[in-house]
């Protein structure tokens, strides 16, 4: 026999009464991303193919840097919430916790890497 109460067995499988916060965040960030997506595609389209020094100078300018930073920060946090819905649909118990942790840690690592690169390109551009 299992030494577990029926309540404990059901815990975590139903509503936590807090899901609307995630849905609202995805709604708000999706509105921001509708504007950021075309802007980001234009920025990246102009950047690909530039020689190294010009590329660094390009991302040292305010608009390319701000649009890229905003797109990656807002996009990756939106990605965390989006993967969370997928994880909640397909994973249970410990696998769910591990998947959520991997998703959050990975996304913030991507954000940190991008922000570091953009900050350094701005500083290098100032040094010139």
């Amino acid at each position: 026999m299992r030494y577990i109460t029926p309540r404990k067995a059901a815990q975590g499988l139903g509503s936590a009464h807090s899901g609307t916060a995630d849905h609202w965040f995805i709604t708000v960030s999706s509105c921001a991303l509708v504007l950021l997506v075309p802007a980001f595609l234009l920025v990246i389209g102009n950047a690909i193919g530039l020689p190294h020094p010009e590329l660094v100078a390009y991302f040292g300018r305010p608009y390319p840097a701000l649009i890229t930073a905003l797109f990656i920060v807002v996009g990756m946090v939106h990605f965390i919430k989006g993967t969370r819905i997928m994880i909640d649909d397909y994973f249970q118990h410990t696998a769910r916790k591990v998947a959520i942790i991997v998703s959050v840690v990975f996304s913030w690592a991507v954000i940190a890497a991008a922000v570091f690169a953009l900050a350094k390109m701005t500083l290098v551009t100032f040094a010139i």
Partner: protein
Amino acid sequence: MADVNRGNRPLSPHLQVYRLPMAAVTSIMTRITGHALVAGILLLVWWLVAAVSGPRAFAAADWVVRSWIGFIVLTGSAWALWFHTLAGIRHLFYDSGQLLRIEEAERASWAIIIGSVVLTLLSLILFFFA
């Protein structure tokens, strides 16, 4: 039990024989494109970090970005991004109670599919010729 009709009962729709409505296909594609975008963002962030790591690191990343592998990943990502964006806009309509009738949802699905391909081609034309 001999009189039970075993051959002529209605069956529940099974994924392998049931033709999914376009609204279901585009809904599944929204989730797939959203997750697949991780490939494009990883490639671009690697490229950005390489640009501040040194000339050799940048040469490697820039080669990948401008190679046929980069072309496939970035063009695929551009399409996935447009698709996910259009499907996201449709979700904003859904949330406000619109486009929920079957014919509307079906038409919106085709608009997302065709729109995403047109916007991707437009992006490529802008990239190569402007």
